[in-house]
């Protein structure tokens, strides 16, 4: 499975990046391909390419704030959670995402 995601928290200093790391590790553990863009104080990093978005089976938005470029994901399956969920239970989140994709 291919996943793209965006992580963004309120202050944009800490939770954003912790969520990114946890999501990447959990997805890799499940054998999935994942790219996570971060939108923080420093700006957008690891920006998703159109190819990555097109190829993705699902989009994970681990966000506490309005993100920029949300329209890029129009028409795709989106699972949106607060960053807390990605930080607290990344493996459970990936499992849920798997169920969402397989349910189609």
């Amino acid at each position, binding site marked *: 499975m291919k996943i793209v995601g965006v992580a963004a928290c*309120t*202050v944009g*200093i*800490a*939770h*954003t*990046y*912790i*969520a*990114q*790391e*946890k999501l990447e*590790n959990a997805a890799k553990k499940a054998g999935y391909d994942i790219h996570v863009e*971060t939108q*923080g*104080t*420093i700006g957008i*990093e690891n920006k998703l390419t159109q190819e990555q978005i097109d190829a993705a089976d699902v989009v994970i938005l681990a966000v*506490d704030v309005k993100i920029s470029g949300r329209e890029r994901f129009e028409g795709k399956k989106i699972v949106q959670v607060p960053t*807390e969920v990605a*930080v*607290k239970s990344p493996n459970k989140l990936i499992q849920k995402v798997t169920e969402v994709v397989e349910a189609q």
Partner: protein
Amino acid sequence: MEVKEILDANLIKSDMSVATKEEALNTLCQKLIDNGYISDVEGFKKDVYAREKEGKTGIGNFIAIPHGKSEHVDNIGVAIGINETEIPWESLDDRGVKGIILFAVGNDHEDANQHLKLLSLFARKLGNDEVVEELLKSTSPEEVIQAFS
């Protein structure tokens, strides 16, 4: 550019022995002001507590990441305390914390992009269970820094 460049041994207390969140933050703020990272302890603490009100900063695994963007920060830095015992903290896993990592970031960061980049890479490492395990075992500032390299 290495993540550990953002760390300063003078800001690390590896043998902290406090019982409350308030005491932990006081200890770490004192380190920040003693070493010239912040200009006003009370002002900075107010901004940190404002962030505490917005949501839990305990991220599980006995780690808390209180932080504030504050006008009272002169230099971007991270103060780290490793406490002997677990202290109560609002955490995602509803447990206490032993490792407290206090982020100090200024409001104006036009000249600070490189530091912010390092800080983001540092934060990322806190999402890694192995790094956290090493961190909590550390008994000296050098070991704390080593955990992130």
